[in-house]
């Protein structure tokens, strides 16, 4: 006979789980009581939001399912932001929440929250277990849905009495899903249509999103793009899928994308989308998005099609299957040479990438850091101006090398997510870039970093403002900096030292020379080469802005630049 809690842990092991993140409390205590000897390592964060973001970081960098555990009531509600984040960014995540005793459910018992109802619209699947016998099936099904198709979050709500109850355990369950009629793949007629569209196109482009990476289709995609040789750009989550040095690559697209990428997208007559949702940060004004384009959309999730514009040809299915199928068909025909169009579209791009042409000290600072990173490094960016600067300057061809909260835009993501990333990749350099606002949203996770001795490299771009909001206030609200002033920030170096983490500052003036002075270079080298946790606070110009910028509601062609 085994307790429900032991059965949960055995089922987790059967799903390949050996690392979980969580925070204990009353209704989940039996599970914690069973952890010792289960073969599962538990990472205690200092807040449930830290646990769920850490689980996300782990999942985003490995592709495995991340697991976060919390108790009922406030423990469960503190997971909600992370669950929403995982939904938006297609992260495989299983959240296990304790629940009050079954006979108390619905009575507003102490620490009772309807987490099942609360997360219905945020989860891909969820379940409130009603008997101990259900537990193996619930866990098997939860993991299946978290990792299958378009990955996403799952909530498993387990009443405490089920965790305490015992039964004869016959082993983990297997779950076989019902087939859905929409699970179709590219057929010969689709290939012929797509080839015909390409043959007619004068200005074709390719847009790469996270789906290309999540499906593991990056090698196939790169081979296809090498052959097509058409202007190509990536969403923030598509960064790394295409090598930045590829001659056809124009950088990031969207609100803070490159001029070349946005203009090519505006002018194209055929848009090939590979695993992207085409949200408003990518499209600008939907009614003026790629106004002359026919759209071919490679996508695993049919729900993402036609959200902004009707596509001429939907190609539904796993990109790891549909891209090679199309590539094989395309290789049998002679497609046009679009080198003239590529030259026009990419003309301005190389100058844009030259750091010497950039006066912005924060960009210089990030360039200096990024250029020192080993090839397998992972950058974890928080949300705000620093996130966009980091995305603009990201130059790695590592598909899972840039991790950020892109869809939900959840400030406070980076520090705990970096914990999960570093645990997943203990030998990799993990560079966590935050702003002064976001860092303080989960600053308590410095304790987790210290306890685990994780060699995470933490950077705060400290402009003493909620910078991105301030930028919008400057540009669109007549400089009314309402409640964005953080000039009374604490001393981050002192705070880090209180958590026993080495910290130092780099001034903006240090970035005024090119190349940087040897003393500054030494600071950066030592920071990145240390095998201890380190914090570097960069004093950023308070009113620095991120450009280019497509104002909200404008077309991609209506970018603002610094000189504007």
């Amino acid at each position: 006979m085994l307790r429900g809690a032991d059965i949960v842990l055995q089922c987790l092991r059967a799903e390949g789980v050996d690392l979980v993140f969580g925070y204990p409390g009353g209704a989940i205590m039996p599970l914690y009581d069973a952890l010792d000897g289960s073969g599962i390592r538990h990472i205690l964060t200092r807040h449930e939001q830290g646990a769920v973001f850490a689980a996300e970081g782990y999942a985003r960098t490995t592709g495995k399912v991340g697991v976060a555990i919390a108790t009922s009531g406030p423990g469960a509600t503190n997971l909600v932001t992370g669950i929403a984040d995982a939904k938006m960014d297609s992260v495989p995540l299983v959240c296990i929440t304790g629940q009050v005793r079954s006979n108390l459910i619905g009575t507003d018992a102490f620490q009772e929250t309807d987490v099942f109802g609360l997360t219905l619209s945020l989860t891909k699947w969820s379940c409130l277990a009603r008997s101990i016998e259900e537990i193996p099936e619930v866990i098997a099904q939860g993991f299946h849905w978290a990792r299958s198709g378009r990955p996403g979050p799952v909530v498993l709500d387990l009443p405490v009495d089920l965790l305490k109850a015992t039964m004869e355990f016959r082993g983990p369950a297997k779950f076989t899903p019902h087939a859905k009629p929409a699970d179709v793949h590219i057929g010969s007629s689709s290939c012929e249509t797509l080839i015909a569209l390409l043959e007619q196109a004068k200005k074709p482009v390719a847009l790469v999103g996270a789906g290309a990476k999540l499906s593991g289709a990056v090698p196939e995609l790169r081979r296809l793009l090498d052959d097509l040789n058409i202007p190509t750009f990536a969403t923030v989550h598509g960064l790394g899928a295409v090598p930045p040095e590829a001659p056809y690559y124009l950088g990031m697209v969207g609100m803070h994308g490159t001029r070349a990428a946005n203009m090519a997208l505006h002018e194209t007559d055929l848009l090939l989308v590979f695993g992207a949702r085409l949200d408003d940060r990518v499209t600008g004004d939907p009614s003026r998005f790629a106004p002359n384009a026919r759209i071919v959309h490679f996508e695993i999730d049919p729900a993402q099609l036609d959200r902004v514009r009707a596509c001429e040809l939907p190609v539904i299915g796993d990109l790891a299957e549909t891209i090679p199928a199309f590539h094989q068909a395309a290789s049998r025909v002679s497609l046009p040479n679009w080198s003239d169009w590529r030259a026009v579209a990419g003309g301005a791009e190389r100058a844009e990438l030259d750091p010497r042409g950039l006066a912005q000290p924060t960009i210089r600072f990030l360039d200096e850091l990024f250029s020192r990173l080993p090839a397998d490094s992972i950058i974890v960016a928080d949300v705000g101006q620093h996130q966009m600067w980091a995305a603009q300057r990201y130059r790695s061809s590592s598909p899972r090398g840039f991790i950020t909260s892109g869809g939900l835009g959840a400030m406070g993501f980076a520090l705990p997510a970096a914990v999960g990333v570093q645990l997943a990749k203990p030998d990799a350099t993990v560079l966590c870039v935050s702003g002064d606002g976001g860092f303080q949203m989960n600053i308590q996770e410095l304790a987790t970093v210290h306890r685990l001795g994780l060699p995470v490299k933490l950077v705060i771009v400290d402009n003493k403002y909620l910078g991105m909001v301030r930028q919008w206030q400057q540009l669109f609200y007549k400089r009314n900096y309402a409640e964005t002033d953080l000039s009374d920030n604490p001393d981050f170096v002192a705070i880090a030292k209180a958590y026993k983490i080495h910290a130092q500052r780099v001034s903006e003036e240090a970035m005024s020379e090119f190349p940087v002075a040897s003393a500054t270079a030494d600071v950066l080298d030592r920071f990145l080469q240390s095998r201890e946790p380190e914090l570097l606070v960069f004093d950023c110009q308070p009113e620095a802005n991120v450009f280019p910028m497509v104002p909200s509601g404008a077309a991609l062609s209506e970018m603002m630049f610094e000189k504007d």
Partner: protein
Amino acid sequence: MQVFHIRYRNTQGTLMRILNAVSRRGLDLPYVQAEALEHTHNVTLLLDVNPKQTGQLCRDWHAIVDVTDVRAGAPEDVTHAAADWTATPHPPSSAAISDSTTRAAMA
């Protein structure tokens, strides 16, 4: 107005997920009827939606794990079943207190 018929396995929360796809868009739900049909369930919704919303809703419903079929059709003669208002109200209403009783209680 457009009628939608959605077939689903009646697992936990599936009907609520179907309805959430409507409510998150701020759409009114003038008519909903869910019923068991042999081995599956069917919910019929009457909604005032434009063609773009129709497409989005159908795709969102189809993406729900236990939804098996989604169909959109012309408005039908969907009428509300007469509600049974003769049962005892719940929660029970307060007993009427006359003015004199109230005054006596407050004296």
